[in-house]
C-alpha cells in the first residue's frame, strides 16, 4: 500500500515539475488501489480516505506482497499459506482467497478443510460467518498459522542483504597482512564500535567475546531493517522493526541470554536483595518483575519508535488525499524528506540502544560482585 502511495506522490512530484499544478489533473488513476487512486491529483473528496486504514495496512502483515517499481512494475505476489490444523499441514497459495479479507471467499484444501480470511487472519469457514467479530486470539476458531507472510519474506530479505554485505566484507580480509578493502570500510568501524563501546564496557574485558556475535547480529539486523524500511519500493520498504512480533523475538533472545548466563550473584540479587528482610515481600516480586520489564522495554521501545516513524511518513502522504488537493504535496514532500533524515538518525540510534541495553542487561547478569555496580544499575532505569 505504502508503495502505491509513494508511487502516486512520486508521479505527482514529477508532474508538478513538468506541467505545474493544474495539468496534473489529467493523471490516470490506477486500478485496484481505491484509496490511493481516488485521492490522486486533486480529485479527492469524492471518496473518503481512511488514513488509519492505510497506516494499518502498511505497518501490518499480509499474505500478499506488492512488488512495485515506479512506472515500471506493479505486481502482487501471493505468498504461501501454511496452516496446522491439528491433523496435518495445509499449504496453498494465498491467491486462492482472491484478495478477500472479509470472510466471503471459502478456500477448500486437498484434505477437505475449509478456510476463510478475515483481516489477514485465516479461520475455519464453518466456525465464523462473514461479519463476525473475531480476532487472531480466538484459537478455537482458527488453525495455527505459519504462513510465510510479507514480513517473513522481509526478514529473509534483510538477513539475505546483511549476509551478502558481510560476505563481501569478509572477502576483503583475505590478505591478513593488508588493510581490508571495500565494504569493510563501512562495516569494520561499526563492529569496532560495538566491541569497544558497547560490549567491553558492559560485559567486561574477559567475557565480552562470547556475546559479540549476538550483539553484532542484533545490531546489524535492526540497523538493516530500519534502513531498508526507509527505502520506499520493493523489495524494500518493510515495517519490520516496527512490528511488535519481530521486536518481541529479539527481546526474548536477550531475555534468554540474560537468564541462562545469570550468575549466582544475579539470582541472589533477585531472590535475596540487600534490603531489610521485612521488605522482601515487596522487593522480591519487584525484582522478579524487573527481569521481564527490561526486555519488555526493549521490545516496546524499538517497535514504537519505528512504527511511529512509518506512521508519520504515511500520514504525511495521506494528508494529500485527506485534504484533497495536489498543492499540499510539496508540503508533504518537504516534511517527508525532513522526516526521512530524522528516521535515518533513528535507525542508527534505535539499533544502538537495543544493542547497548542488551549488552547492559547481560552484563548485569554476568558481572562479578563489585561495589560499583549500583551506579550502572541506575543508568538502566
Amino acid at each position, binding site marked *: 500500500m505504502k508503495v502505491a502511495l509513494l508511487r502516486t506522490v512520486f508521479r505527482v512530484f514529477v508532474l508538478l515539475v513538468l506541467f505545474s499544478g493544474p495539468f496534473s489533473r489529467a493523471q490516470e488513476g490506477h486500478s485496484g488501489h481505491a484509496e490511493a487512486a481516488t485521492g490522486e491529483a486533486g480529485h479527492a473528496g469524492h471518496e473518503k480516505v481512511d488514513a488509519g486504514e492505510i497506516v494499518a495496512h502498511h505497518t*501490518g502483515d499480509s499474505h500478499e506482497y506488492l512488488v512495485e517499481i515506479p512506472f515500471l512494475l506493479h505486481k502482487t505476489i501471493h505468498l504461501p499459506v501454511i496452516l496446522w490444523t491439528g491433523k496435518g499441514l495445509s499449504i496453498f497459495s494465498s491467491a486462492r482467497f482472491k484478495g478477500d479479507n472479509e470472510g466471503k471467499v471459502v478456500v477448500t484444501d486437498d484434505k477437505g478443510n475449509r478456510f476463510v480470511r478475515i483481516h489477514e487472519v485465516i479461520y475455519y469457514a464453518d466456525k465464523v460467518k462473514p461479519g463476525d467479530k473475531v480476532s487472531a486470539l480466538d484459537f478455537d476458531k482458527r488453525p495455527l498459522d505459519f504462513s510465510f507472510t510479507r514480513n517473513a519474506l522481509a526478514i529473509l530479505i534483510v538477513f539475505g542483504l546483511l549476509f551478502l554485505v558481510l560476505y563481501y566484507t569478509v572477502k576483503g580480509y583475505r590478505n591478513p597482512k593488508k588493510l581490508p578493502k571495500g565494504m569493510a570500510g563501512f562495516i569494520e568501524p561499526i*563492529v569496532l564500535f560495538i566491541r569497544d563501546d558497547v560490549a567491553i564496557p558492559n560485559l567486561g574485558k574477559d567475557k565480552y*567475546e562470547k556475546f559479540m556475535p549476538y550483539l553484532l547480529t542484533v545490531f546489524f539486523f535492526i540497523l538493516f531493517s530500519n534502513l531498508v524500511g526507509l527505502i520506499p519500493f520493493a523489495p524494500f520498504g518493510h515495517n519490520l522493526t516496527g512490528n511488535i512480533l519481530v521486536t518481541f*523475538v529479539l527481546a526474548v533472545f536477550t531475555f534468554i541470554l540474560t537468564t541462562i548466563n545469570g550468575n549466582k550473584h544475579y539470582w541472589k540479587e533477585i531472590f535475596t536483595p540487600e534490603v531489610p528482610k521485612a521488605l522482601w515481600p515487596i522487593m522480591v516480586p519487584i525484582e522478579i518483575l524487573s527481569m521481564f520489564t527490561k526486555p519488555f522495554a526493549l521490545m516496546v521501545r524499538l517497535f514504537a519508535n519505528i512504527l511511529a516513524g512509518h506512521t508519520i511518513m504515511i500520514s504525511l502522504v495521506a494528508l494529500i488525499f485527506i485534504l484533497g488537493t495536489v498543492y499540499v504535496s510539496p508540503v508533504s514532500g518537504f516534511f517527508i524528506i525532513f522526516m526521512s533524515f530524522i528516521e535515518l538518525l533513528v535507525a542508527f540510534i534505535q539499533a544502538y540502544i537495543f544493542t547497548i541495553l542488551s549488552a547492559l542487561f547481560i552484563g548485569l547478569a554476568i558481572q562479578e560482585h563489585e561495589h560499583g555496580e549500583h551506579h550502572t544499575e541506575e543508568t538502566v532505569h
Partner: protein
Amino acid sequence: MNLTAPESLIFWMTLFFLIFFFLLTKFAWKPILKAVKERERNIEAAVDEAERVKQEMAKLKADNEKLLQEARAQRDQILKEARELKEQMLQEARAEAEKQRAEELAKTKQLIEAERQAALKDIHHHVAKLTVEMAEKVLRDQLADKAKQEELIRKNLSELKLN
C-alpha cells in the same frame, strides 16, 4: 496494525534469526573479529618494536655523544698540552737567548776592556815616546846647564808619575 496470526511471524523470525545468527557468526563475525584482533596485535607489536628501536637509537645517540665529548676533551687536552709546550719552549728559547746575549755582552765588554787597556797602553807608550822626544828636544836645548838639567828631570819625572 494487522498482525495476521502472531505465531506465524514469531516462528519465521525465530527460525531466520537462529539460522542467520549461526551463519553470520561462522562466516562473518568470527573472521572479521579475528582479523581485527590479529591486526591490532600486529600494530601493537609494531609499536613496541618501534619503541624499542627508538630507545636503542637514543642509546646509540647518547653513546655517540659521549664518544664525541671524550674526543673533544682529548682534543682540548692535547691542544692545552701543545700550548703549554709551546710556551715552555718559547720560554726556554727566550732564556737561552738571554743567556747567550748576556754572554755575548760580557765577552764584548771584556773585549772592549781589553781593547781599552791596549789602547791605554798604546797611548802611554806614545805619550812616553812623545815625552821622551819632547824631553830630548828640551834637553838638547837646555842641557847646557847640567845642574838645571838634572833638577828639571827629577822634578818632571815626579810630576809624571803615571796619569
